[in-house]
């Protein structure tokens, strides 16, 4: 099957600034795809290139097999939900939602029906007569969605659509967007700087730094096997420890504070080379042993430097022998498990299978 969206070697230059560097990407029909990265990484430029608001300096873009070179934004099978929502303030909710139908050949009553259906789909039935400026942030977001989906585009582009909402509403909209995407079966491309949002919502995520795709993977691979320490650091929390690779074939290494280990080739997604390297380990992949608890797995002695209590979890900063930087360990606050005190001596239990080797 050919990809719905096919980007090949897209470059974008602004005067002396290289915004997109040789981006190649294939996105399948019906996929929920995210472009994730810090601000200024080129993710919005890439989205606007697909929408037709920016022309690539070179490279090709095909949507559903059609070359988009020279095709203006108003002739592309894409619709966009803008970061500011761009609700037309002088029009009512139904005029906003029906705006894209202005030129369609539908009869007036058919248009009204599809506006009502679109509003129903986003949970705004009965809001059609409201003035646009009388809406709350979450409602504006829904109007923007209905307005973009009413034209049944092949691709829906979402430019940080949830960044203006508060936490509760954002979480609610995240699951609604997912549900909506499954329901309509349209390809969604989401731009976000929120790594959690990208992991929750997407089938696949492209992590971008400095105009380049650093890693393109499904959320689980992205979290478990980041290809570089930069990606590992950007997605969630990761501890980094200096290490020395002794044997690049068998992948045996000596990790500061943890000692000698042997890892699986899968745990070195960017390959292994003899010499200095880094290993990464997630906070929840280690655990603190409490007084009287027997040793399990591999074990290291540690002292608690700081802690942060989150209710469901407690995050500890602990220092281990031979490592200057404290490492972060998260513990679930289950029944019978005490919250440890700062300064307390403890043991860290860990598993070599949870290490990731970075050669960068």
């Amino acid at each position, binding site marked *: 099957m050919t990809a719905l969206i096919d980007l090949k070697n897209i470059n974008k230059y602004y005067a002396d600034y290289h915004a997109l560097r040789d981006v190649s990407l294939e996105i399948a029909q019906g996929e929920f795809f995210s472009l994730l990265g810090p601000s200024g990484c080129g993710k919005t430029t890439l989205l606007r290139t697909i929408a037709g608001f920016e022309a690539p300096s070179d490279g090709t873009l095909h949507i559903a097999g059609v070359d988009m070179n020279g095709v203006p934004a*108003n002739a592309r099978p894409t619709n966009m939900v803008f970061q500011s929502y*761009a609700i*037309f303030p002088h029009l009512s909710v139904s005029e906003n939602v029906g705006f894209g139908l202005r030129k369609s050949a539908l009869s007036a009553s058919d248009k009204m029906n599809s506006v009502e259906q679109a509003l129903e789909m986003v949970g705004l039935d009965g809001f059609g007569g409201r003035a646009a400026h009388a809406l709350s942030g979450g409602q504006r977001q829904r109007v923007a969605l209905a*307005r973009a989906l009413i*034209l049944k585009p092949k691709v829906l582009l979402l430019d940080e659509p949830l960044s203006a909402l508060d936490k509760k509403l954002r979480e609610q909209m995240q699951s609604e967007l997912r549900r909506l995407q499954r329901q309509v079966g349209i390809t969604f491309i989401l731009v976000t700087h929120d790594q959690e949002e990208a992991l929750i919502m997407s089938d696949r995520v492209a992590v971008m730094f400095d105009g380049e795709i650093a890693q393109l993977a499904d959320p689980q691979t992205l979290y478990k096997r980041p290809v570089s320490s930069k990606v590992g650091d950007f997605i969630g929390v990761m501890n980094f420890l200096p290490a020395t690779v002794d044997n690049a074939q068998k992948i045996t290494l000596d990790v500061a504070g943890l000692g000698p280990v042997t890892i699986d080739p899968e745990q070195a997604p960017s390959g292994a080379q003899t010499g200095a390297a880094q290993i990464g380990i997630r906070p929840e992949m280690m655990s603190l042993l409490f007084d009287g608890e027997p040793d399990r797995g591999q074990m290291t002695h540690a002292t608690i430097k700081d802690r942060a209590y989150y209710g469901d979890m407690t995050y500890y900063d602990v220092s281990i022998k031979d490592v200057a930087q404290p490492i972060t360990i998260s513990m679930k606050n289950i029944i019978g498990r005490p919250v440890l005190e700062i300064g307390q001596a403890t043991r860290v239990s860990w598993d070599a299978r949870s290490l990731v080797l970075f050669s960068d």
Partner: protein
Amino acid sequence: MKSLRFYAILYLIFLYAPIALLPVFAFNDATIIAFPLTGFTTQWFTELPQIPALIDSVKNSLYIAVITALLSTLLGICASRAAAKYTFPLKKPIMGFIMVPLVLPEIIVAVSLLVILLQLGLSLGAWTVIMGHVLICTPFCIAILNSAFQNLDPSLEEAAIDLGESTWSTFRLITLPLVSPAIISALLISFTISLDEFIIAFFLTGTEPTLPVYLWSQLRFPARIPVVMALGTILVAGSVVLLIIAEIMRRRGLRRAGLKDSGGFL
């Protein structure tokens, strides 16, 4: 602090007392402009329509003011839209040059225009006054329209294009309705400026005087002064009404775009 406040109050009195005296003497039953007042009359107002030269000057002024308002607002729309949406070489100096007449002494503008027009061999008349007025009104229009165009979220236009509209229909359906309060405000302000303007009109008007030029010529006849006062009262009242409407439209425009007021002309 106290003396400063006192000074400010005196200053305001000095500034506005003459305007306040205008209606007082316009309704006073005496040809001499002096206190004490002798009695109430509306005679000076009823005399107004009976002076044909006055009626002609009013018609002339209205004609000039309407055309000036339309032309300078149209130019203002083009300039502010270009300034808000596009970058082009020498943008800053060009925008600066357009705004210069705002601070240029009118007498300089008037004299230099007169010299050029005479050199070109053009005869003076309503159109030469309009040219002068458009020159001084356009910067005001740009000042008003600029903030409206700058405050417009560019993604609104992009959203309309994304939904299938052309550049022109986007401008007609989205941009124009959203800046229309500022357009009305610019029309009213340039109309008012043109209607009241004296120096340029005086130099460029030829044989058909505008209202301010006619009023000035009548000051030589003491018997006409109460009539001038009456006319002045009507003009002040009319200007105030127009400016208030202009300000209301400007504020409505800001509200419509969902923005905070950052100060205007009033």
